[in-house]
């Protein structure tokens, strides 16, 4: 890819064009790991800075977007791994909105469950808080496989993991996520 070749030689306008063109993609990846906008933007910036120094390792065999997505995934994964994991989320930590959202889910109230923008935001925040208590690997695999419904093969390509590792990680992560939700629903455990 011509832009990558130019940027590798230190051409700043070429690198600026890469940032402009691929920002939405990198933000999408970073958004899987972080909930606050500032953290997403910081992570995306870190990805591009790293991309600039590692452009030499892009050999042009696959697509540049695939290379950058993999770099973004691993950079964000490392950022999450180095951060402290949040303590377990309990019913008493829930906000009023989150409690109401869970009640609506359990009551099977189709009107309440279906889903205003505001309710979607409450659910996304609650999901983020539950995921924050889990490991970086669990968080990633749940978001990609269960949330975005990506194929195991795609996730393996993005992360550099084997397909069997993705499957095993997803299996265990689902159990941990389910157990965390059972506690929030007051099922004990």
């Amino acid at each position, binding site marked *: 890819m011509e832009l990558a070749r130019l940027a590798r030689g230190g051409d700043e306008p070429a690198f600026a064009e890469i940032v402009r063109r691929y920002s939405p993609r990198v933000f999408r990846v970073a*958004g899987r790991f972080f909930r606050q906008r500032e953290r997403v933007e910081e992570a995306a910036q870190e990805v591009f800075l790293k991309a600039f120094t590692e452009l030499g390792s892009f050999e042009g065999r696959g697509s540049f977007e695939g290379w950058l997505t993999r770099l973004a995934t691993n950079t964000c994964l490392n950022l999450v791994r180095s951060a402290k994991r949040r303590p377990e989320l309990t019913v008493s930590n829930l906000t009023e909105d989150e409690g109401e959202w869970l009640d609506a889910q359990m009551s099977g109230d189709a009107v309440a469950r279906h889903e205003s923008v505001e309710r979607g935001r409450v659910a996304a925040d609650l999901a983020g808080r539950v995921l924050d208590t889990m490991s970086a690997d669990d968080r990633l695999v*749940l978001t990609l496989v269960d949330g975005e419904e990506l194929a195991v093969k795609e996730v393996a390509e993005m992360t550099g993991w084997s397909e069997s590792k993705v499957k095993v990680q997803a299996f265990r992560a689902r159990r941990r996520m389910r157990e965390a939700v059972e506690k929030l629903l007051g099922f004990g455990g």
Partner: protein
Amino acid sequence: MREQHIKAILEGAPLASLSEAELETVREHAARCADCGRAFRAARVAAELLRARAAEEFEPSPFFQTRVLAALRARRAEEEAPALRRLWRAAGALAASMAATVALLAGLTFLAPGPGVVTDDAAAAATSEPYSAEAALLGVASAEEMDYEQVLSALYASGEGNE
């Protein structure tokens, strides 16, 4: 065993990807088994949460590109600064070692006694017996030890030797 089987279905794949037959098996069992019923409800809530989380999107701000380029320049400047500092330190070390060498030589020249340097006794003798041209020419310790005749004959002898 059957409870375990239901949980294995719930954990083996995303809920949304289960076939209708698998879902029917799960529902049927969950209706009879309280433990699996709770697991199924929790799995459904978890799936909803993850779907909501995946639907969230973040757009880059209009200033993001500028911010990245500024950070890139700052990082490059940081990387160059240590190289200059190293060069400056090396030059400083060279100047310091040269100054130390000069100081050492000066110290040796003015302070340390050497074989050709007079001691206190010799210095006292030198003051009492001033240096004279005759003494130097005739190779004797003091001109006062010779009389006039001896000096003349020594000078003539020296002149003949030169011719």
